[in-house]
């Protein structure tokens, strides 16, 4: 089994959001995916790829380029536009011993195959045992009037289900390491990429390496609040925090990386310290993954919270196509900055709540 030999990269601690290669190799998020796909196929002849466009000149924004030439059309399978069946085929191939990777150009199309994902894939292993290694790669788009059916961000539909893992990498480093780990994992993984991250550049080791599934990354450390974000929303956080120098505010910035399972330990540890939590959803706020983060913190960090938990994200409406509508639909770094200031200034009352301060950090973390 080649997959048990992969180890986490030592050099890249992945603390910084932008390239921290320190002389290391820099490549784009898209290139990192392409390399990960290639290495996965090279590592293990059981890895196959299925999807619309995986073997056509567009090559899913270049991320599958060259693969069919290198590994043959038996392993790089151009498919009909039949997401439901192809998802079932992916499950079946996995049961039979392959490690299939199914690719969708938009996560909006996952809805066509929801029955196979939630009624079948998510339950198969719990029902029947064995391993069900499979990855469903899919892309969140945004902008240029993508609109109602081509810019949604559906991670929330797949979070909260024990039988699925869901990752949303935000950096070139993570996208490669998480992808290889998703392929290595013995169960199903939904892999959400973001189209607007494709040209982001950063440090990416050449050798195959893994980033742990279900572990968040601390992108920066601070004292005043904890900001939790996922996928592209991290870029807004980066801008907002960079802009906060004057205010003298610093934040623990946590990139979730995985939304299922959630790395609550990392979040809790930070909230114990900062007492304030802001969650930035890449998607609608209402019933988003952030709701679960907030609900758990409201239960488990109760004694440490010094202010209400805030969430930022999209409205729950249909995503508009018109450019001005689109502009005002998405919250930006400025909204984030305002929320951060509001949260930090508001209700700073550690003294007023003696009981909370009493309970020592150690006793809760132990």
């Amino acid at each position, binding site marked *: 089994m080649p997959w048990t030999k992969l180890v986490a990269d030592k050099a890249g601690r992945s603390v910084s959001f932008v390239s921290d290669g320190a002389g290391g190799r820099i490549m784009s998020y898209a290139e990192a995916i392409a390399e990960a796909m290639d290495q996965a196929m090279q590592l293990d002849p059981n890895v196959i790829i299925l999807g619309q466009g995986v073997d056509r000149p567009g090559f899913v924004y270049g991320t599958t380029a060259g693969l069919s030439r290198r590994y043959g059309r038996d392993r790089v399978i151009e498919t*009909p536009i039949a997401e439901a069946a192809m998802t079932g085929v992916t499950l079946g191939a996995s049961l039979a011993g392959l490690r299939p990777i199914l690719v969708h150009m938009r996560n909006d199309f996952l809805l066509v195959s929801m029955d196979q994902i939630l009624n079948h894939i998510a339950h198969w292993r719990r029902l029947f045992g064995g391993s069900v290694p499979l990855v469903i790669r899919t892309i969140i788009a945004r902008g240029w009037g993508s609109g109602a059916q*081509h810019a949604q961000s559906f991670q929330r539909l797949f979070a909260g289900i024990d039988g699925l893992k869901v990752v949303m990498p935000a950096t070139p480093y993570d996208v490669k390491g998480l992808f290889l780990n998703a392929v290595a994992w013995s169960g199903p993984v939904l892999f959400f990429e973001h189209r607007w991250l494709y040209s982001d550049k950063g440090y990416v080791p050449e050798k195959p390496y893994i980033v742990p599934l279900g572990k968040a990354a601390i992108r920066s450390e601070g004292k005043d609040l904890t900001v939790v974000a996922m996928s592209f929303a991290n870029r807004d956080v980066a801008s907002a925090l960079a802009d906060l120098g004057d205010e003298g505010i610093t934040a623990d910035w946590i990139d979730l990386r995985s939304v299922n399972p959630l790395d609550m330990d990392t979040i809790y540890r930070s909230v114990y310290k900062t007492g304030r939590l802001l969650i930035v959803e890449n998607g609608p706020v209402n019933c988003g993954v952030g709701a679960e983060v907030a609900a758990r913190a409201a239960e488990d960090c109760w004694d440490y919270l010094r202010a209400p938990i805030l969430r930022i994200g999209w409205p729950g409406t249909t995503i508009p196509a018109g450019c001005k509508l689109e502009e005002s639909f998405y919250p930006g770094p400025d909204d984030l900055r305002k929320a951060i200031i509001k949260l930090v200034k508001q209700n700073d009352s550690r003294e007023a709540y003696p009981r909370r301060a009493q309970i020592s950090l150690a006793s809760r973390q132990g």
Partner: protein
Amino acid sequence: MEIEKAYELYSMMTEIRLVEEAIAREYPAQEIRTPVHLYTGQEAIAAGVSIHLSDEDYVVSNHRSHGHCLAKGMDLEAFFKELYGRQGGVSGGWGGSMHLCDMSRGIAGTSAIVAGGVPIGAGIALKQKISGDRGITVVYFGDGAVDEGVFWETLNFAALKKLPVLFVMEDNKFASQTPSEDRQAYEDITPIVSAYGVPVFKLDGNDPLTVAEVSGRAIEGIRKGRGPAFLCCKTYRWLAHVGPSDDTNTGYRTREEVTYWQNRCPLARMGQYLEVADPENSALRVEAIKLRWAAAVARAIEQAKEAPYAVD
């Protein structure tokens, strides 16, 4: 074909062609900020079908909907306002190119999910059937849509309930960059569809007269209560799957193939027909039609650009 009908056909196709050409021209200015799937080269289908439709008939369409909507009477100015994201757009600026609608003209909406609109059209037809309306519903979709199971579910239901639907498949050989033979086990869909008991018409989708004649027959049957019919129209898209440019050099199709189909231009063919059928007037009338639409398109674009942006 009656000569005035023939001019109408020519006019419809001219409108569509000029609209798509104008979009292609304007697109680089980055004011039309919405993905466009241009209909250039396929005009005969929407025009040939729509010539038989009135406001009590509905159409439901897909991502490549400009031609379907314009042929069904969508207001040009409201159309362009939608593309430019302006107030007064057919969907209030909310939809963009992929989501056009005007119920008052029987344009029931368009879905950008492949095959997503197909069952919706059958639902409209169910209403028409139940209330004994004279109207019918036309569902447009590509050769890609028949890959999706929901197409077959809908075909079965429509045939079972004898719904007044005309299924119009625009077989332009590709779904995005993938040719049918890489997606479909069958070479010919028509025997499959006819085994559902649905009358099938396979035709040259680049010949407006054929489309008009055959769809006329199909629609007549539907209006008589005979249930759905299916047109399989062979055609070709001249430009890229999405966007205003020619993507032939990416390698998924040959220059020869594109040229072959451009030489089978439906508009040119209709022009030739008019030349023969109405040698006296055609030159003048054809020119007048072109000028009229060129002006209308230019005016609509101008008005769209001047309109205030749609805001929340």
